[in-house]
């Protein structure tokens, strides 16, 4: 089986400071990988380098494209990369307002990716937008409301719908549950888990919340100071951490 994503030796420096370095891993179709670590550990830098938002200083991010098989997305043309990020890739931002158009209705937000890839039938765009609102548990009669009239949890779900409407194969998530209260978090996690399984999505989730990765991620990568210090099966890393930093991280979680 060909990995969906092969990350080879990614390095990103900010001047002489390390953003992240020596990151190498494969992600297979249907796998969900969590990246955990404290603030400043380089996990967001890594995610942005993978998703094409930052240009890594060296390394390859090889994606198994539908048309041409594995292609290095770092060196592909910007047009191709942006096309990829509108079709087979999705990016869920921590703050929904970074990932939504706040002045455009919920339906328009969901429809944008469809129109971007050439859908020109209003009726079918609207139908799919309504369908997706239902799938993320937003009432269909909110379709013409702007996201500014939505709660934080609804905005986050709308952002997910907007991203998944084109049936991407790889989703990048940056703290998708950050800033939401716990009951809203639980609902979002359940939703994400269902969608991941239903659509056979692969995902890379950056978070500092270990409970989130335990529920969502198959595999875990622990980062510290820009480097990967431990990888493995999620429950194994959390229940039997090998590296001193992971042990500290796991033992630092407050119990309810």
């Amino acid at each position, binding site marked *: 089986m060909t990995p969906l994503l092969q990350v080879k030796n990614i390095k990103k420096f900010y001047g002489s400071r390390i953003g992240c370095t020596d990151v190498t891993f494969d992600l*297979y179709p249907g796998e969900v990988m969590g990246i955990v670590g404290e603030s400043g550990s380089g996990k967001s830098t890594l995610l942005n380098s993978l998703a094409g938002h930052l240009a890594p200083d060296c390394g390859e991010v090889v994606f198994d494209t539908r048309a041409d098989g594995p292609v290095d997305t770092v060196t592909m043309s910007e047009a191709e990369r942006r096309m990829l990020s509108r079709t087979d890739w999705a990016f869920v931002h921590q703050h929904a307002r970074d990932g939504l158009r706040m002045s455009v209705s919920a339906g328009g937000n969901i429809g944008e990716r469809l129109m971007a890839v050439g859908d020109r039938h209003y009726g079918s765009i609207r139908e799919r937008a309504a369908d997706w609102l239902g799938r993320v548990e937003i009432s269909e009669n909110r379709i013409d409301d702007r996201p500014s009239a939505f709660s934080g949890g609804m905005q986050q779900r709308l952002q997910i719908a907007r991203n998944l409407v084109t049936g991407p194969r790889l989703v990048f998530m940056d703290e998708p549950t950050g800033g939401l209260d716990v009951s809203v978090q*639980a*609902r979002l*996690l359940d939703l994400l*888990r269902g969608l991941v*399984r239903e659509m056979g999505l692969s995902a890379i989730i950056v978070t500092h919340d270990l409970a989130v990765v335990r529920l969502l991620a198959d595999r875990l990568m622990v980062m510290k100071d820009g480097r990967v210090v431990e990888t*493995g*099966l999620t429950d*194994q890393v959390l229940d039997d951490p090998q590296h001193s930093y992971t042990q*500290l991280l796991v033992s630092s979680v407050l119990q309810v």
Partner: protein
Amino acid sequence: MIELNNVSKSFILHNQGSAVIPVMQNATLCVKPGECVGLTGVSGAGKSTLMRVIYGNYLAASGSVVVGGVDVAKAEPREILALRRETLGYVSQFLRVVPRVPTLDVVAEPLLAVGTPVGQARDKAASLLAQLNIPEPLWGLSPTTFSGGEQQRVNIARGFAYDYPAMLLDEPTASLDAQNRTTVLGLIDTAKARGAAIIGIFHDEAARETVCDCFVDVSDFSPKAMA
């Protein structure tokens, strides 16, 4: 089906003066299809630890843990995931699920994971829940709000939903009333009959005698050097 060779396990506590705590040494055992092996030993002897090593939850320090041809001690995460999906079931003492998912779906999940059609998976889940006397009105609710006994029965139903060729059972009959206990023992017998290799921990001696074909005393694997 399940074969352990010279498995040892120790915990190194880096943040507490790098204390090394050996917990298991030279664990060797073998379970054939259709066989049920009971783990015995006093509390703290390492029964659950051994199970977790077999399930891949704990990383074996040395030795090999071969389940259905895969060496869990060395396998890639995705090989272990495939193994857990298709070959190796685990009924732990705790139910860990996403809040809000209905009980019926929690039980059906292992079937859905291997591609069983939703209707069929739900039917199987419903029949297991009925067998284990979970009242039907609860099926649509999340098990997170259930009593301890109910949660455990949900956990058992989930563990038996899919016919795993190999199973790990951690105290499946603990705190069950007589009727449910009989049901669970029946499920274990059925699994054995279809050829499942089972490793179990039973504090309930009568149950142990009924289903287990042989016993392994985990105390034999306790690190001797420490003593």
